[in-house]
């Protein structure tokens, strides 16, 4: 019974976590994922992509000022934001898929908090030494030696935090230009503010908060654990094999009464969130599997089979407890639920690819003036006015011809022109990658229905061509 002797405080001091270095399959996997994610994060803005003279040559660019999103050969305009919605849907379903198949893999391997905490812990080990040295240093009184080590560590952390926060801004502007402007102090103030804030949050969250972020601040573990089921792979301590725990000595003294667990505490020592996996599945477990590496190493040393702690489904664990063979992992990966998720996920992706392939790079929209709805001219003819927008979504200037279909007698002119210069079509050039806004006057004879439907048409007159239509309405005074 763990009865508290003093009245418990409402607020708990953080218990330090000093994870021990470990080696093994999952550690190597974590290294690989870390290298890949960091390379993507830091490297992406520097990839060039030639789009010709009228568009930026950065492969991935979120151009907020001009409301464009560039991703390699794809250029997204604001009205095509459904692609982003589609990506979010894919991310959501992808999360269901991954979580139902391999549990909280995101948390353990790919989450930025995990990646940067891991990076910071490597720095910490390099400067302070491994777990025992860190514990000793933490307990040691503040002196020159400790202060020096702490300052060096914090400086390196801060350096990493700075290049982390600094890399973020390059996604929003041309990276080489912005970097130059950043160093000579001519970058926009918002870039400095962004870098400062992201540096500070990286330093604090990665260096000091660490597992506290995962346990207290992050909503993800709650969401992800809700998506797990009895067929999801989670890190499991096989208590039926491990209990009763006992050291090698004890086991030798009374053979048969102890399980495989030597109670060596290596699984606890290596855990980056400071939990004891032998207490069962818990919210603090990010399924990074470092405890599996640690335990397997010990099992190998004492000549017992690996996998006392292992990725295992709850169903398989139940079966094993009852003496059955463990299920092969492929069975948990390929089952109705994961296949259904994969089908939904890939059909959303295919639909988006299809839409991307057939989308038009030229668009017209027309808005009728409502005040006044129509104007009677001196010869009795009726004029309506429209605000027509032409979108040229290609990275080159194009000449376009506006016409009308369904109102053969109509004559068009635009601001700056006059009725005398009106014609059946209007020609205008639209700059590369931009929207031209025209006020278009349309003249029709006074005789006719009060409401007449017609279409505005636009056609690019260059070699590649392309055309679009927009339904519109002409209104006359009631007879």
């Amino acid at each position, binding site marked *: 019974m763990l009865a*508290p002797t003093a009245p*418990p405080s409402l607020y708990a001091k953080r218990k330090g976590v000093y994870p021990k270095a470990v080696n093994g399959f999952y550690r190597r996997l974590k290294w690989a994922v870390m290298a890949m994610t960091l390379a993507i994060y830091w490297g992406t803005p520097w990839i060039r992509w030639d789009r010709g003279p009228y568009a930026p040559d950065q492969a991935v660019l979120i151009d907020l000022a001009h409301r464009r999103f560039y991703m390699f050969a794809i250029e997204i305009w604001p009205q095509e934001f459904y692609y982003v919605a589609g990506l979010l849907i894919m991310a959501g379903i992808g999360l269901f898929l991954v979580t139902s198949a391999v549990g909280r893999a995101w948390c353990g391997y790919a989450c930025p908090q995990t990646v940067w905490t891991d990076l910071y812990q490597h720095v910490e080990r390099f400067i302070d030494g491994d777990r025992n040295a860190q514990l000793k240093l933490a307990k040691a009184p503040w002196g020159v030696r400790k202060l020096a080590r702490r300052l060096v560590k914090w400086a390196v952390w801060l350096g990493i935090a700075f290049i982390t926060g600094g890399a973020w801004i390059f996604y929003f502007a041309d990276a080489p230009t912005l970097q130059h402007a950043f160093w000579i102090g001519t970058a926009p103030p918002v870039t400095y503010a962004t870098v400062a804030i992201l540096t500070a949050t990286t330093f604090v969250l990665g260096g000091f908060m660490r597992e506290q972020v995962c346990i207290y601040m992050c909503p993800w573990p709650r969401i992800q654990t809700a998506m797990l089921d009895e067929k999801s792979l989670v890190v499991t301590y096989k208590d039926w094999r491990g209990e009763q725990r006992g050291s090698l000595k004890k086991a030798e003294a009374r053979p048969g009464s102890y399980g495989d667990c030597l109670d060596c505490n290596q699984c606890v020592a290596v855990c980056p969130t400071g939990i004891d996996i032998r*207490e069962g599945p818990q919210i603090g477990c990010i399924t990074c599997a470092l405890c599996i590496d640690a335990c397997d190493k010990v099992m190998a040393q004492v000549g017992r089979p690996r996998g006392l702690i292992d990725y295992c489904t709850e169903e398989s664990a139940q079966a094993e407890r009852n003496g059955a063979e463990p299920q092969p992992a492929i069975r948990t990966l390929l089952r109705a639920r994961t296949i259904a998720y994969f089908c939904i996920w890939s059909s959303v992706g295919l639909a988006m690819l299809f839409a991307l392939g057939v989308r038009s790079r030229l668009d017209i929209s027309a808005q009728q003036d409502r005040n*006044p709805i129509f104007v009677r*001219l*001196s010869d009795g003819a009726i004029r309506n006015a429209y605000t027509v927008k032409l979108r040229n979504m290609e990275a080159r200037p194009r000449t376009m011809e506006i016409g009308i279909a369904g109102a053969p007698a109509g004559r068009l002119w635009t601001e700056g022109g*006059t009725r005398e210069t009106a014609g059946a079509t209007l020609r205008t050039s639209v700059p590369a990658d931009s929207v031209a806004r025209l006020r278009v006057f349309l003249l029709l004879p006074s005789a006719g229905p009060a409401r007449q439907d017609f279409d505005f048409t636009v056609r690019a007159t260059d070699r590649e061509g392309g055309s679009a239509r927009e339904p519109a309405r002409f209104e006359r005074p009631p007879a």
Partner: protein
Amino acid sequence: MADEKRVDPATGTEIKHHEWDGIQELDTPLPRWWLWTFYATILFAIGYTIAYPAWPMIDRATGGMLGWSSRGALEKELEARERQMAPIRLAIAETPITALPGRPQLMQAAVEGGRAAFRVHCVQCHGSGAAGSRGYPNLNDDDWLWGGDLIAIEKTITDGVRNPDHAATRTSLMPAFGKDQLLTLEQIDDVVAHVRVISGQDKRSAAAQRGARVFADNCAVCHGPAGEGNRAVGAPRLTDAIWLYGGDADTIRETVWNSRHGVMPRWNDKLDKATIRMLAAYVHSLGGGDAVPSVAGGGR
């Protein structure tokens, strides 16, 4: 008050004294940093209320150490906006109005500025869409009493129409043919019939033929022999489809009987040159403006 403390054996945490359907709550302590974050927000709030207007007093709130106010911020923004606009307004005021269309950026700025000024000064009579109403001209159409090119529009706005206190104002005086007994009732009926014919609203009749003579004697001097109007004296064209007061027989008869003398204010003493020029550009851009007489020749 229950003194008995119950502790959860698995976590060593105290259990609270309530229960729903067998579910009990652990009294898990919050992390310490959470407490410090909470204190920090309190400190921030106190600092904020000292720096910025916050505490309500009897007649007003505390001013704040930084001297910030929403009204002051607005004034600053307006001033900055005016400073930004000043060179454009100056350029518009200095550019002859006929040269504006040749400078598209300036023209666009003028049209936009005119649109804003129109909403303040002109909508009361001409309507928010400039479509006018009975007695107030529709500025979207191509029928102009005093001319629809940029110079004529600017002149109309500058000096107004029928401002008796100003010599430059535009004035036309149609006699009240009936009230002042210049024509008899029959003559007026005849001339109305004639006007209905030349505007294409009625078929020829005996009355209209009689009216043609009356028209030639009394009306043609201003409205022209064929009723084509005369912009020099502000005489409306009578042969088109646009009627300021209405083209039905009763309304035309009333017009001939009493005459009509619409007044437009003279804006020269209320608005500066740039604003008037902007208004002229905007009105001209509404779609019915006449071609500019001479772009190359510059202004007058």
